[in-house]
C-alpha cells in the first residue's frame, strides 16, 4: 500500500470530478454517496498505509513517491512527489477519518440546501487539498495544498453567497491568508536559494550540517514560514478571519475551521522542526505567539454569545497551545494535541450544528437552554468533548494538554507555565459556560425542537468515543509507553540524528524526547494533578455562575462594564485593523487613481497632445490663404534680409 500512497488524495479528487461532470445529471443520492464513498476509500487506504508502515523498522518509515516532474528551470527542479512518513501518515488518517464522519453528517445537515452538489464538490475538493498538503514531499507541493485548502475555505465560508456577511468573510479569510503566504512564499524561495532544492528529504538532513545554531538565514526562513502559519492557523496578528469564518455551514466549521485546515500551520512547523531547532529566536517567537494567542483568544471566548463564535475563539486558543508546544521543542506533543483537538473540536462544532439545526437556525446561546432532554446524543457528546478540551482525566485532551504544560514548564520555567495554566482555567470556564447555558436551565427558545436524523447522531457518537479514548495513544502514565511520541520520533529534530547540533532549543527538544514520562514520573504526576485542579476550578466557577446563581454574571458585567465591553468587542482589533490598514488602503487606491493617474500622468499625456494642437492653431494663422498677407510677409522678409546684409558692412 505504501507504493500507492497517491491513492489517498486521489480518491477525493475522483469524487470531485465525478460530481462536477456527472452529479448534475445523476441526482442528489448519487452526489452524497460518491462524496462519502470517496472519502471512506481515502480513509481506508490511509489506514492501510499506516498498518504497513507500523510493520516497518522505525528507521525505514520514510517512503517518497515521485509522480511527475512539475517544474524544471535551470537548477530549480520540483517534483510532484508524495511522502509517507509517520507524521504525514498520522495526519492522513486523522484528516480522512474526521472528514469522512463530517461528510456523513453533512448528508443529513445539508439535505434541504439547494446548493447540495456544490457543497459536496467543495468538501471533497477540500479533503483532496488537505491530504495533498500533508502528504507533499517538498515545500511546493505542500504549498499547493496550503493554497488549495485556503481556496476551499474561501468557497465554503462564502457558501451562502447571497449573504453579504458570508461573502465578505470568505474574502477576508482569503486575503488575510495571502498576507501570511507572502511570508511563506518568500521563505520557500529563500530555502531554495540556500539549499538548492525544495525537497524535505534533502533540506532537513543537511540543515544542521550547513548552518550553525542561531544562523540568521535559518532564523529568517523559519520566521517567514511562521508568518504563513499565523495566517493559516489563525494566530496573532492574523487570526481575525477565523471568527468571521463561522458564516459558513457548521460542518465546514467543524472540518476546516477546527479539525483540519487551521492545523496546517502546526503541521508545517512540526514538519520543519529540523529548521526551527536551529533558530532559537524563531522558537521563542513561535512559543510567545502561541502562548499569547492561547490566553488572548480564550479571554474573548468568555463573553461571546454566538455558539459558533465561542468555539471559534476556543479553536484559536487551542491552536495557540499547539504552537506553544512546538515553540518549546515539544513537536510531538503539538501534533498529539492537534490530533485530540481534531476529535473534540470537530465534535463540539457538530453538536453546535445539531443544536442550531434543531432550533431552526438559532445561534445565540442566550436563546437556548434546557436542551439536554430533547437532544440526548448531542448533550452527552458535548459533555465528553467539554471534559476533553478542559483537560479532565482520562479524556483525550487531558493527555495532550498536560504534556504541553509539562514540556513548557521544563523548557521555559514556571512563569510561562503559569500563563499557560491561566489559559486552562479560562478554557474550562468558557466551555462549561457554554454547556450550562445551552443544555441546562429552562428553555429560552420559543419553538419546537427538531430531532436530528441518524446521519447526524452517528458521527457525533463516533467522535465522542474518539474524544473520550483518543488520548490513550499518548498516555505514558498508564501504559509506560508513549505510542504517538515513539511513532513520530524519527520525524522530529531532537531525535538521535540532530543531537549533534547542540544548543538551547535542541537541548530542550532532546530532553523532551528523552523524557517520555519516565524521567520525572512523580513530579509530572503532581503537575498533572495541578492542571486538573485548575480545570476543575474553572468548571466549578462556571457552574456557580450559570447554574447556581445566574445573576452573578450580570452583576459582574455591571461592575466591570469597561472590561466586559472590551472583551465582548474582541479588544476592538477588527476596528483597529480597519482604521489602520483597510480604510487607508482603499482611500490611497482611490486617490492614486483620481489624482496621480487621471490628473498627473494622463494629464501630461493629454497635455502634450493639447500643446501640439495649440501650437498648430498658432501656426495655422500664418496660412490664411490671402495673397496680401503673403505679399506682406515676403516684403517684411526682404526688408529684414536687406537690413542684415547692410549692417554687415
Amino acid at each position, binding site marked *: 500500500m505504501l507504493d500507492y500512497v497517491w491513492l489517498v488524495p486521489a480518491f477525493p479528487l475522483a469524487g470531485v470530478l465525478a460530481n462536477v461532470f456527472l452529479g448534475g445529471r445523476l441526482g442528489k443520492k448519487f452526489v452524497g454517496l460518491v462524496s462519502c464513498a470517496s472519502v471512506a476509500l481515502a480513509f481506508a487506504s490511509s489506514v492501510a498505509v499506516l498498518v504497513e508502515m507500523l510493520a516497518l523498522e522505525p528507521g525505514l518509515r520514510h517512503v517518497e513517491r515521485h509522480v*511527475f*516532474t*512539475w*517544474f*524544471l*528551470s*535551470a*537548477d*530549480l527542479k520540483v517534483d510532484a512527489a508524495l511522502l509517507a512518513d509517520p507524521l504525514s501518515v498520522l495526519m492522513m488518517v486523522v484528516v480522512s477519518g474526521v472528514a469522512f464522519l463530517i461528510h456523513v453528517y453533512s448528508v443529513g445537515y445539508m439535505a434541504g440546501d439547494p446548493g447540495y452538489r*456544490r457543497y459536496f464538490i467543495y468538501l471533497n475538493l477540500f479533503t483532496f487539498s488537505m491530504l495533498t498538503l500533508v502528504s507533499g514531499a517538498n515545500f*511546493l507541493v505542500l*504549498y*499547493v495544498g496550503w*493554497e*488549495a485548502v485556503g*481556496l476551499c475555505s*474561501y468557497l465554503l465560508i*462564502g457558501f451562502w*453567497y*447571497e*449573504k*453579504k456577511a458570508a*461573502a*465578505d468573510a470568505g*474574502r477576508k479569510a*482569503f*486575503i488575510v491568508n*495571502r*498576507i501570511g*503566504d*507572502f511570508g511563506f*512564499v*518568500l521563505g520557500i*524561495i*529563500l530555502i*531554495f*536559494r*540556500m*539549499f*538548492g*532544492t525544495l525537497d524535505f528529504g534533502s533540506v532537513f538532513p543537511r540543515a544542521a550540517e*550547513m*548552518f*550553525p545554531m542561531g*544562523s*540568521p*538565514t535559518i532564523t*529568517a526562513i523559519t520566521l517567514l514560514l511562521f508568518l504563513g502559519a499565523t495566517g493559516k492557523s489563525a494566530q496573532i496578528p492574523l487570526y481575525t478571519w477565523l471568527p468571521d469564518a463561522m458564516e459558513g455551514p457548521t460542518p465546514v466549521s467543524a472540518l476546516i475551521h477546527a479539525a483540519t485546515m487551521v492545523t496546517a500551520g502546526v503541521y508545517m512547523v512540526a514538519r520543519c522542526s529540523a529548521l526551527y531547532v536551529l533558530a532559537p529566536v524563531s522558537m521563542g517567537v513561535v512559543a510567545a505567539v502561541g502562548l499569547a494567542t492561547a490566553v488572548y483568544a480564550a479571554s474573548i471566548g468568555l463573553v461571546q454569545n454566538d455558539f459558533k463564535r465561542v468555539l471559534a475563539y476556543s479553536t484559536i486558543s487551542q491552536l495557540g497551545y499547539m504552537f506553544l508546544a512546538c515553540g518549546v521543542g515539544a513537536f510531538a506533543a503539538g501534533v498529539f494535541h492537534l490530533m485530540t483537538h481534531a476529535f473534540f473540536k470537530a465534535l463540539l462544532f457538530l453538536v453546535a450544528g445539531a443544536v442550531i439545526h434543531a432550533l431552526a437556525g438559532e445561534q445565540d446561546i442566550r436563546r437556548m437552554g434546557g436542551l439536554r432532554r430533547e437532544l440526548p446524543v448531542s448533550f452527552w457528546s458535548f459533555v465528553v468533548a467539554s471534559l476533553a478540551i478542559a483537560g479532565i482525566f482520562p479524556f483525550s485532551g487531558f493527555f495532550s494538554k498536560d504534556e504541553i504544560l509539562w514540556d513548557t514548564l521544563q523548557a521555559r520555567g514556571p512563569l510561562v507555565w503559569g500563563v499557560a495554566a491561566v489559559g486552562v482555567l479560562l478554557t474550562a470556564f468558557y466551555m462549561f459556560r457554554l454547556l450550562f447555558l445551552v443544555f441546562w436551565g429552562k428553555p429560552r427558545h420559543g419553538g419546537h425542537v427538531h430531532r436530528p436524523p441518524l446521519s447526524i447522531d452517528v458521527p457525533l457518537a463516533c467522535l465522542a468515543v474518539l474524544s473520550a479514548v483518543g488520548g490513550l495513544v499518548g498516555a505514558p502514565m498508564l501504559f509506560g509507553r508513549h505510542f504517538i511520541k515513539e511513532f513520530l520520533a524519527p520525524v522530529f529534530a531532537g531525535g538521535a540524528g540532530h543531537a549533534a547540533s547542540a544548543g538551547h532549543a535542541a537541548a530542550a527538544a532532546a530532553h523532551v524526547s528523552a523524557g517520555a514520562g519516565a524521567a520525572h514520573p512523580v513530579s509530572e504526576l503532581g503537575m498533572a494533578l495541578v492542571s486538573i485542579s485548575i480545570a476543575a476550578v474553572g468548571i466549578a466557577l462556571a457552574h456557580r455562575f450559570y447554574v447556581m446563581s445566574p445573576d452573578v454574571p450580570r452583576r459582574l458585567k455591571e461592575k466591570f462594564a469597561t472590561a466586559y465591553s472590551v472583551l465582548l468587542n474582541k479588544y476592538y482589533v477588527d476596528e483597529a485593523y480597519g482604521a489602520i490598514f483597510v480604510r487607508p*488602503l*482603499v482611500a*490611497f*487606491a*482611490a486617490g*492614486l*487613481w*483620481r489624482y496621480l*493617474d487621471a490628473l498627473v*500622468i494622463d494629464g501630461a*499625456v493629454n497635455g502634450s*497632445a493639447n500643446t501640439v494642437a495649440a501650437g498648430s492653431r498658432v501656426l495655422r494663422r500664418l496660412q490664411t490663404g490671402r495673397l496680401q498677407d503673403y505679399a506682406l510677409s515676403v516684403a517684411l522678409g526682404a526688408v529684414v534680409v536687406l537690413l542684415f546684409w547692410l549692417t554687415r558692412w
Partner: protein
Amino acid sequence: MNGFPLVSVVTFLPLAGAAVIAFVGSDRLRAIRSVALVAALADFLLSVPLLTRFTGSSAGMQFVEKVPWVGAIGASYHVGVDGISLFLVLLTTFLTVLSVAASWYSIASRVKGFMMAMLLLETGMIGVFVSLDLLLFYVFWEAMLIPMYLIIGMWGGPRRVYAAVKFIIYTLAGSLLMLVGILVLYFMHHGATGEYTFDLLRLYGTAIPRGVELWLFLAFFISFAIKVPMFPFHTWLPDAHVEAPTAGSVLLAGVLLKMGTYGVLRFCFPLFPAASVAAAPVVSVLAVVGIIYGALVAFAQKDVKRLVAYSSVSHLGLVMLGLFAFNAQGLEGGILQMVNHGISTGALFLIVGMLYERRHSRMMEDFGGLWKTMPVFAGLFMVVTLSSIALPGLNGFAGEFLVLVGVFLKSVPFAAFAALGMILSAVYMLWMFQQVMFVEPRKRDAPALADVTAREKWILIPIVILVFWIGIWPGFFLSRMHASVDAVLARVWSAGLAGEVARDAGGRGGAAAPDVLQAVSTEAAPDSASAGMTPDVGE
C-alpha cells in the same frame, strides 16, 4: 513536409481569409463570419505542428525561411520561430479563434469590415513574432496598428475616437524612435563590416560603442515600454480597453501587449546586452512600481473592464521584472507569464463581454448575485479569476513563482515588493468577483441573466483546459524554452555582464555584483549549485 513554408503559411493564411471575405457580399453575414472562423481555426490547426515538430533542445531558429526581399538595401524576408516566439505565435492563433467566435453576434454592423480587420490583425501579429529581419519586423509592427486602430475606432464604445487616436499616436511616437534606432544600427553595422543588412541574427554580432549602445537601447526600449505598457506610459491602455469591442480587448491584452515584452527579449537583450544590464535597476524599479501601482488603481475601479485593464499593468510589470532578472527562472517565468496573461486576461475580457452583452453595462454596481442564475458561467469565471491570482496548480502560479524565484536570486527587496502584488491581486480580483457574482443583485428590478450559451461555453472551456494544463504541467512548456533562453542569457552575460561586473566590483560594490556572479556560476554548473552556495551569507 520538408521545405513546406509552414511559418509563412501560418502568417499569411489569415490575410488570404480576409481576401476571400472581400469577395463576399457585405449582407451575407453568416458567410462572412463562417469564412473568418474557418480561416482562424485553420490557422490555429496549422500552427500546432510548430509545437509538435519543434525541437526543444535546439537554441537556433527553426522552420526558417529566408529569401531576398529588397536586395539593394540588404532587407530579406527572413522568418522563423524559437522557444521564445513559438508560444506567442500559438497564443495569437488560439486567441484569434476565440475572438472571432466571441464577435459572432456582438458585432452586428459592418461585419465584413470587422472580420477582415481581425484577420489582417492576426497576420500582423504573427508577423511581428516570426520576423527575423528588422525591416520586416518594423513593417509588421506598424501594419498591425492599422486594423487595431480601426477595430477600436469603428466598432468601439462612445469615446472610441479619442481612445483610438490616443492608442495610435502613443504607439507611433514610440515606433518612430525605434525606426531611428534600427537605421543607426544598420549603418553602424555597415561601418563595421561593410555589409548592409537588416538581418537580425547578423546584427546580433555588431560591435557598438558603449555610449551609443545606451541610446540605441533607449530608442528600442521606450517603444516597447509603451506597448507593454510600463508605468508611467500606461494611460492609453485603460481607455483603449474600455472603448474597444470584446475581441479587440482580448487581442490587445492577450497579444499586443506581449509584443513589448517580446521585443525586449528578442531585440534589446541580444542587441544591446551591456545597456540592458545597465538599465536593469531603473527598469526594475519602474516594473515594481507598475506591479503595485497597477494593482492599487485596479482596486479603485468601478468598471470591470477598466479594472482588468489596470491589472494588466500590474501583471506585465511582473513579466518585465522577471526578464530583467537575467537568469533562467526569471526569463522562463517571464515568457510563461506572457502566455498566462494572454490566456487569463483574454478570458477575463471575454467574460466581461458576455456580461456586457447581457446587461449592457460594465459597472459592478449593475451586477451582483449572478451565481444563482449562471452557475456554469460562475464556475468558469471562478477558475479564470483564480488563474489570474496565481493559485498553485493553475497557470498563473507557474509563471509567477518562477519569476519570483528569478527575481529573488537577483535581489531580495525587489522580490518582496513583487510578492506584495500577490496579496493585492487577490484583493482586487476577489472584490470584483464578489461584486459581480455574489450577494444579492444590486438592481432589484433587473431581470435575471441567462447562463452561458453553448457557443460561450465552448469559448471558455479551451481556456480552462489550458489554465490547468500549464498549471499542472508547466514542464511541457518550459522544456521548449530552455535552449533559447540560455542562448539569450549567454549573450547577455558574455557581452553585458563582463564589463558590468568588473565595474561593480571596483566601484560601487553594490549587492548586485556577487548575486550576478552567483547566477552565472549557478547556470554554468547546475550540479554544483548547492555546493557553490555559501552557507549564511549574512554571517
